[in-house]
């Protein structure tokens, strides 16, 4: 019967293709909306939730958090490296890492820090950087293939590829990180000293970066854009924030509370997307109802022929249901594949613009519920349009 059902669909190919396209469009949009809303939310929470304090120059706390944790937005300016050294000796501080930045390579920011900052990530290839000039690639940067282990490259000031080229300082790739699903996948890490060395010999007026380095007893030092901290306790965090309030030109913020406003907006956006997804799924039901109804209407002559030959009404109903099931299953599979591909494409945009990684292979149970809902709605819509034709026997008109 399946073979015959497929042949019957083939005779109404245009209508079949249009119905499939309608379902695929509706389902794909619903899947992408749901997935991206969840991945953005998860990405913000997982990145911002790991550390409780960021110390940096005065200015927008959100800009400080976004530039330090998601590597988007320009840094607010620089602060002295001394703050980091002081915090290292603070007993209420569990973990503390300096962040320096200013350059990029092929759109990927070059972040200066200490090797310990990357300890929570796994290496996929090569080794961790150990000397100034060495670099470790984030997962997406390594996967893009622009750099291989052992390659040498020079950074460009800022994010634009047409920026000033720091040709006098060459980086060499020591290793690559495994996938983290965070903004770390999109950047290149290097020892903080690399950043100081790059910016030692010249000045970029009006651009914030840590460009003053000194050589005191052979030790390279300079400024940093922020310090990322994990304190021992909430009380320690509160004390730290209070202490930095007293220091002019510097601030300590809690990234989670700073990002709360952003998350609030995202949650509202997510709710809107859920409503949108529901409307789209409903629309697909209407499309299928109309398509199946007109399909049945178009097939009235064929139904009469089948009935005259002796094909049972039950068999004809099964034939139409089977056709609907085929269109549904086909459209759902294609929608899922397209949504995966679309997520990879969306990742290119969100990774560069927001520092958020959208994983095309990451899926939520809710997506499968959407697919199931679409499938059931299609079948019910089709049945609603088929059953009147089933009840009304064309032979009774004869």
């Amino acid at each position, binding site marked *: 019967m399946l073979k015959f059902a497929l042949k019957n669909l083939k005779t109404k190919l245009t209508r079949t293709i249009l119905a499939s396209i309608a379902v695929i469009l509706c389902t794909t949009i619903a899947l992408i909306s749901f997935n991206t809303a969840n991945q953005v939310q998860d990405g913000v929470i997982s990145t911002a939730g790991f550390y409780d304090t960021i110390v940096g120059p005065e200015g927008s706390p959100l800009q400080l958090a976004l530039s330090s944790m998601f590597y988007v937005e320009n840094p607010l300016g620089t602060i002295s490296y001394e703050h980091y050294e002081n915090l290292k000796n603070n007993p209420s501080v569990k973990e503390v890492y300096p962040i320096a930045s200013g350059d990029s390579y092929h759109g990927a920011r070059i972040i200066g820090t200490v090797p310990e900052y990357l300890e929570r990530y796994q290496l996929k290839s090569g080794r961790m950087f150990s000397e100034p000039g060495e670099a470790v690639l984030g997962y997406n940067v390594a996967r893009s293939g622009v750099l291989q282990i052992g390659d040498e490259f020079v950074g460009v000031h800022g994010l634009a590829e047409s920026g000033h080229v720091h040709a006098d300082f060459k980086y060499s790739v020591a290793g690559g990180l495994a996938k983290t699903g965070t903004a770390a996948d999109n950047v290149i890490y290097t020892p903080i000293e690399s950043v100081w060395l790059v910016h030692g010999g010249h000045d970029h007026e009006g651009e914030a970066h840590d460009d003053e380095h000194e050589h005191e007893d052979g030790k390279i030092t300079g400024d940093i854009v922020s310090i990322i901290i994990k304190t021992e306790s909430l009380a320690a965090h509160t004390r730290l924030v209070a202490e930095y309030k007293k220091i002019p030109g510097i601030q300590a913020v809690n990234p989670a509370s700073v990002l709360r406003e952003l998350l609030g907006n995202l949650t509202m956006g997510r709710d809107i997307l859920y409503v949108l997804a529901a409307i789209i799924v409903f629309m697909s039901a209407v499309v299928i109802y109309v398509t199946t109804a007109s399909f049945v209407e178009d097939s009235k002559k064929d139904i009469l*022929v089948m009935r005259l030959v*002796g*094909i049972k009404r039950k068999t004809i109903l099964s034939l139409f249901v089977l056709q609907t099931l085929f269109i549904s299953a086909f459209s759902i599979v294609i929608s899922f594949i397209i949504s995966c591909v679309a997520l990879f494409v969306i990742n290119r945009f969100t990774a560069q613009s927001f520092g958020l990684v959208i994983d095309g292979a990451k899926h939520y149970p809710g997506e499968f519920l959407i697919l199931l809902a679409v499938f059931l709605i299609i079948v019910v819509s089709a049945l609603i349009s088929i059953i009147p034709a089933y009840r009304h026997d064309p032979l009774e008109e004869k």
Partner: protein
Amino acid sequence: MIGITNLKKSFDGERVLDISDINFENGISYIIFGPSGCGKSTLLNIIAGVIPSNSGQIIVDGLDISGLSPVKRDEYRLNSVGYVFQDFRLLDGMTVEDNLRLLELELRLKLDIDQTLDALGILSKKKKKITTLSVGEKQRVAIARALIKEPAVLLADEPTGNLNSKLAKEIMSLTAGYAKKLGIPVIVVSHDYGMREYFDMSVEMSELNGVNRQC
């Protein structure tokens, strides 16, 4: 064999058919003549189980079809009746083969498709779409579909209405010949008296139908 007694049929209260008694024997071909509106097609539709009678008895191959439920009539039509229509009633978007394989939906494909088509001289058209066939070829496909289930009775309602004279004679001769070949009754209704010579027996609808109409 078909035996009909006291068959009555009305539409919207108007009696259109009243046949007291007639038998159609196996191996005999019948042609029923009469102008349009005399109840010829209604009689065929009742024998075919397409519509029920209001009263009377119709025994086909030992089965009384007059009291069958719609579902049982479907089964009877599928299993016992080969019906050829004037307007062919084929699935136009499908191929010749698909039109025959339609019966596979009810597991009722008894004869070999190639042999059946070959016997009707249209084997080369097996993969062709119905819309690409000539009217003569379409009528042969309709006959093939009626025969391939090995019916207990072969009925044809004005099977040559759309054909030219030469082709009409060819089709009539072919259809009538199945009575002897298959040992079943073949009943054809027509208004073309020139086709009488191809059939074993002819029946005048005006003599058969007791309803006083303009036949």
